[in-house]
């Protein structure tokens, strides 16, 4: 092998071999080359040594700048690099995504003082565990001797799980406590240990089942839920052992050895390899450095970990504490999957289209179901003047609906623009709504929309809906047109009025809505009527409409 092409062929076979993807034929070819050609063997060994040099113990490249007369530069300007550059131009930028919590969820951020890193600007860390991590397992992992090869846990659910080594697992697969390292490349799995502790693991992750009451996490994210009978359940990472004392907590172990612990319920004991230990309680998060084993306080992240999965419903819950009803009006599931799909017409036969010419539109108060939106039960034009108004598909009636003109100008929608093209805007207390971070549901007088709480509960096993909150009012942009019109706002639950705010106009303060919800409540209805029998310019809406959630 004395040409560059031969080297590339060997290099390619090496890459495939590293991933265990050589075919029999390719393997035989490689073996033959290495046996027959001393240069090929030499090349193979040099390559493997170079790859292994991306190794544990934090190899730190120097920060020397490149000079024009750099003798290495000619290597880097060979034709090969031009070929690579050509490929690079067509390749998308490689981004290693950084996980950032949404801004509104950060209440108070207290960052630990910036530690001067002892290493220069980047590490090359090989996949092999660093020496300190290995020694942790060797020296400090005081495992109670347990019989190996015993079934101690069950895979109880998974979503889009993909494992290395072509491992096939399904619901009900029993897992043994042995030396095997599970490498979850994609998706999510939920395991239940025989001690009744459960863990949700998010890929990419590598872990071992150590015993019925412990798991070793080399890297990845794990959310543990430990009932009282399983207290003492432990998670081992390369630099820590976390002992549960009856709680819910999340652990993230990074490939470089850093470990984060976030405690959501109860308390845990955080043990380090240097035999220090710290009790970490609810609402607290800690980070242990993989290099120094120093412990630092970090902000608790309530949405970093996947806490619940349900493959039948396709449900993945990351701890979000509320459902966005504006997202549901946009066709989503309340967790950000919706889009602005247009308006729901409370009076017409077509669900999402209104005549381009705009209102006023006249209709009766017939309740119209929304089959297309999974969590919107239906819409209607409230007009109590013709009698009680049906407000759900199950026949709930609003007995005290006030008399209105039965006229509406816009449908029910989310986002800044109505289908008719109206962009009158939605502003309360000087803040725009219908923009990212400030969702809203436009409910121009006279319109009503009902949400199916039962359907929402079905998609979120393990969670309950405890409250509806919103800010309701008439947009300040009305001032450009008039100052006199007023609207009435009503929130009903199964037809029963639970909130009202009457004669709210552009000069009024918006009203905070807070309605407690019970497990037995089926339908939530939001209504806006023309408070003064003048529906024109009733640019009314519910800002940041949310259903507050709680774990069961």
């Amino acid at each position, binding site marked *: 092998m004395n040409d*560059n092409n031969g080297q*590339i*062929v060997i290099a390619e076979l*090496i*890459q495939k*071999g*590293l*991933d*265990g*993807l050589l075919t029999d034929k390719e*393997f035989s070819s490689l*073996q033959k080359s*290495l*046996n027959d050609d001393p240069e090929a*063997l030499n090349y*193979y*060994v040099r*390559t*493997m*040594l*170079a*790859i*292994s*040099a*991306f190794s*544990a113990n934090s*190899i730190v*490249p*120097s920060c*020397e700048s*490149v000079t024009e007369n750099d*003798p*290495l530069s000619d*290597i*880097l300007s060979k034709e*090969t690099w031009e*070929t*690579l550059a050509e*490929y690079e131009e067509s*390749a*998308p930028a490689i981004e*290693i995504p950084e996980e950032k919590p949404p801004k509104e969820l950060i209440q108070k951020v207290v960052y630990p003082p910036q530690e001067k890193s002892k290493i220069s600007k*980047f590490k*090359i860390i090989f*996949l*092999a565990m660093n*020496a300190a991590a*290995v*020694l942790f*397992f060797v*020296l400090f992992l005081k495992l109670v001797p347990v019989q190996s090869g015993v079934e101690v846990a069950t895979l109880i659910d998974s979503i889009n799980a993909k494992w*290395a*080594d072509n491992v096939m697992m399904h619901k009900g697969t029993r897992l043994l406590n042995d*030396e095997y*390292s599970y490498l979850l*490349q*994609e998706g999510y799995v939920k395991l239940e240990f025989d001690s009744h502790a459960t863990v949700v693991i998010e890929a*990419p992750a590598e872990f071992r089942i150590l015993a019925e009451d412990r798991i070793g996490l080399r890297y990845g994210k794990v959310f543990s839920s430990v009932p009282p009978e399983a207290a003492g359940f432990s998670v081992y990472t390369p630099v820590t052992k976390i002992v549960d004392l009856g709680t819910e907590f999340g652990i993230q172990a990074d*490939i*470089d050895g850093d470990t984060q612990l976030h405690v959501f319920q109860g308390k845990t004991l955080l043990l380090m390899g240097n035999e220090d230990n710290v009790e970490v309680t609810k609402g607290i998060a800690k980070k242990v450095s993989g290099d120094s084993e120093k412990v630092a306080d970090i902000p608790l992240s309530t949405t970093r970990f996947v806490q619940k999965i349900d493959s039948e419903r396709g449900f993945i819950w990351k701890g979000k504490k509320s459902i966005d009803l504006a997202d549901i009006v946009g066709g989503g599931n309340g967790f950000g999957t919706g889009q602005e799909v247009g308006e729901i017409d409370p009076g017409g036969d077509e669900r999402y289209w209104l005549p381009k010419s705009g209102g006023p539109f006249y209709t009766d108060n017939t309740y119209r179901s929304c089959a297309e939106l999974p969590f919107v039960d239906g819409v209607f034009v409230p007009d109590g003047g013709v009698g009680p108004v049906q407000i759900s598909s199950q026949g709930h009636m609003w007995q005290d609906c006030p008399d209105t003109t039965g006229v509406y100008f816009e449908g029910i929608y989310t986002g800044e623009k109505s289908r008719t093209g109206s962009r009158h805007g939605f502003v309360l207390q000087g803040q725009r709504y219908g923009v990212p971070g400030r969702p809203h549901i436009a409910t121009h007088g006279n319109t009503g929309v009902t949400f199916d709480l039962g359907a929402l509960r079905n998609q979120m096993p393990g969670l309950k809906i405890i409250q509806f909150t919103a800010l309701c009012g008439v947009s300040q942009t009305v001032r450009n047109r008039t100052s006199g019109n007023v609207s009435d706002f009503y929130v009903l639950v199964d037809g029963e009025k639970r909130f009202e705010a009457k004669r709210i106009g552009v000069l009024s303060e918006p009203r905070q809505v807070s309605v407690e919800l019970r497990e037995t409540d089926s339908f939530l209805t939001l209504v806006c009527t023309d408070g003064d029998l003048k529906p024109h310019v009733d640019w009314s809406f519910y800002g940041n409409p949310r259903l507050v959630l709680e774990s069961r």
Partner: protein
Amino acid sequence: MENSPKDLPDKSDLERVFFELFMNCQKGVFAYILSSVHHYADANDLFQETATVLWQKFDEFDQGTNFQAWAISIARNMVRSYFNRHKRSRLQFDDNLVKKIEDQTVSKLRNHDSRVESLKKCFEKLSDSNRQLMKLRYEQGMTVKLIASRLGKPLHGMYKYMARLQNSLLECIEKAMALSK
């Protein structure tokens, strides 16, 4: 030679000594294992197992002798045991080739520090995107298949690309090592 109880180092001293010796040679031990086993994930596991055994047998090590050589002799047995365990599930080089690889690896480990230094220099000269690629491959341990999937590139092309990148990096390392002599 028997030690009296007074002569025996206490546990924390022993750990410290082991740690120092292991830190100095762990790169070489891993290099040896990877060259022999050629399967990335298996090499990692085997490396960890070897470290465990090294500690368990540390009292058999003759202080003052070459720790790396002793560690590699342990690793050799671990590799053979691995081959026996995975006879059916892993493609394995024949014994003759394994011996040749082992001899060459041990020989080249003598200047492994120089190789590591040269790698640092050459790595820095990569473009940002190629450095990121190497990080995904070797720092985060992604398979080429996963990288290709993330980038939306065909797998075959991605292997070729990685091979060329690795080859060019190797050339740079070899030249840097030559210049440093």
